[in-house]
């Protein structure tokens, strides 16, 4: 889907957020970007989304052009819902910004809310929803345009463990159902091992790709009980230790 080649991003005061990052996103793949805070994960995601430009290197899309508005969905760590709008209106927003009429959009809006398990909550305001439900609305909003690529920046980091496990399982089920490509940023080894097919480990700043670990496990809600899951977590942890070890 996308070739990221030798990408570099520098900020003021000599901060090198990304250095020589090369990575290929495969169509339909669930990829987790794993790395310590400040290693440039969000920066990389913003570059992929076209919200920021690299200082060096390039991003080459297989289709020969960058995705149009609505072809990329983005989920932030905070649900970033409009507090004054209902769940349905929040999910409607991406379509509204592309001048789709409300009547035309409503079937897609209801479908997206139903997919994240929030059928019946259309008129609820964000303040009436729990943190996990707000994140579900945020995911529905990202899905409503039927994006080819879903970018998620530590979406579950602020949730409690129970809620997080539920959302992780539902996200994997959703991904298998709709088959879009997902890049999922996280700093949790357990989360990366649970959701992803490919786990890409980044080094501390300046962020570089350190190693990639491919999961051969069958994704599913009971993956945590699979002995293979523990092995994968161990293997990622070992690689992580190697990242952090002084050269």
């Amino acid at each position, binding site marked *: 889907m996308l070739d990221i080649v030798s990408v570099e991003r520098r900020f003021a005061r000599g901060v090198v957020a990304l250095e020589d990052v090369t990575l290929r996103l495969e169509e339909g793949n669930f990829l987790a970007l794993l790395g310590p805070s400040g290693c440039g994960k969000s920066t990389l995601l*913003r570059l992929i*989304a*076209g*919200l920021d430009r690299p200082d060096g290197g390039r991003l080459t899309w297989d289709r020969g052009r960058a995705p*149009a*508005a*609505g072809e*990329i969905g*983005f989920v*932030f760590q*905070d649900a*970033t819902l*409009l*507090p*004054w709008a*209902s769940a349905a209106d929040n999910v409607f*927003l*991406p379509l*509204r*910004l*592309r001048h789709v009429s409300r009547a035309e959009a409503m079937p897609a809006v209801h479908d997206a809310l139903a997919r994240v398990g929030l059928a019946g909550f259309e008129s609820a*305001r964000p303040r009436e929803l729990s943190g996990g439900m707000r994140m579900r609305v945020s995911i529905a909003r990202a899905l409503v*345009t039927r994006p080819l690529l879903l970018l998620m920046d530590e979406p579950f980091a602020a949730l409690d463990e129970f809620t997080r496990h539920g959302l992780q399982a539902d996200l994997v089920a959703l991904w298998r159902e709709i088959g879009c490509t997902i890049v999922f940023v996280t700093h949790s080894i357990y989360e990366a091992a649970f959701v992803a097919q490919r786990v890409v480990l980044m080094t501390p700043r300046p962020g570089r790709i350190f190693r990639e670990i491919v999961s051969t496990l069958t994704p599913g809600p009971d993956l945590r009980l699979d002995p293979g899951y523990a092995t994968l977590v161990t293997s990622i942890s070992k690689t992580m230790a190697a990242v952090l070890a002084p050269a």
Partner: protein
Amino acid sequence: MTESWLRLAPGFFALGALAAWELAVRGFGVPVYILPGPIAIVAAFLTDPGGLGGSLLATLTVTLTALVTSAVLGAALAMAMAASRLARAAILPWAVVLQVTPIVAIAPLVIIWVGDPFASLVVCATIVAFFPVFANTATGLAAGAPEYFDLFRLYGASHRDTLLLLRVPVALPYFLAGLRISGGLALVGAVVAEFVTGSGGFASGLAYRILESGYRLEVARMFAALVLLSLAGIVINLALGAFGAAVLRARDGP
């Protein structure tokens, strides 16, 4: 029980203070032209309720006109600044200049330039009231978290949609808080302008009544006018508070 006493406490305190004031004035035999008691003040109001009431109305008309003008101008200029960096660079310094210039110093100029007495008062009061609502709105229009702006950019939102669907609703509580401050200032501005113009022939506002009563040593009437001014200020503040709450309820739905 305790709750209701807490609610009544300010009223009892005021009653006690007024009684103490009246008793002190009587007990020490303070002459009314120095310090009238509350009863004398009420009596002064009751001897000419139409005169003072009419003056109150005149001052309130100036105040409200100036407040509406400030709100419209402040919101419009803040939006212009949010829409264009050039507009921002052009407007901001002048808004600050306007804010730091003492109204007493420019009021005579305003009167000469504007001519019409009512319009002069409104211009002066607007100059005083303008800044809080303007500055607050400008702050609010930029107050959305960066992720929200990223979200709107991601979906190719136009400047207009970003303004209407994000910046304006986010700015609303800021605007309303600014409006409440500007409401009090509009009254202050109206009274100050009346003081300056009072000698210039336009004589109907409460400030003029205060000056007039001062010349005539009708101190009780002076106090009555003052009390009306304070009450007007309190009512404006409370009304704008209730208005703001109602607007936010309308924004946020049931």
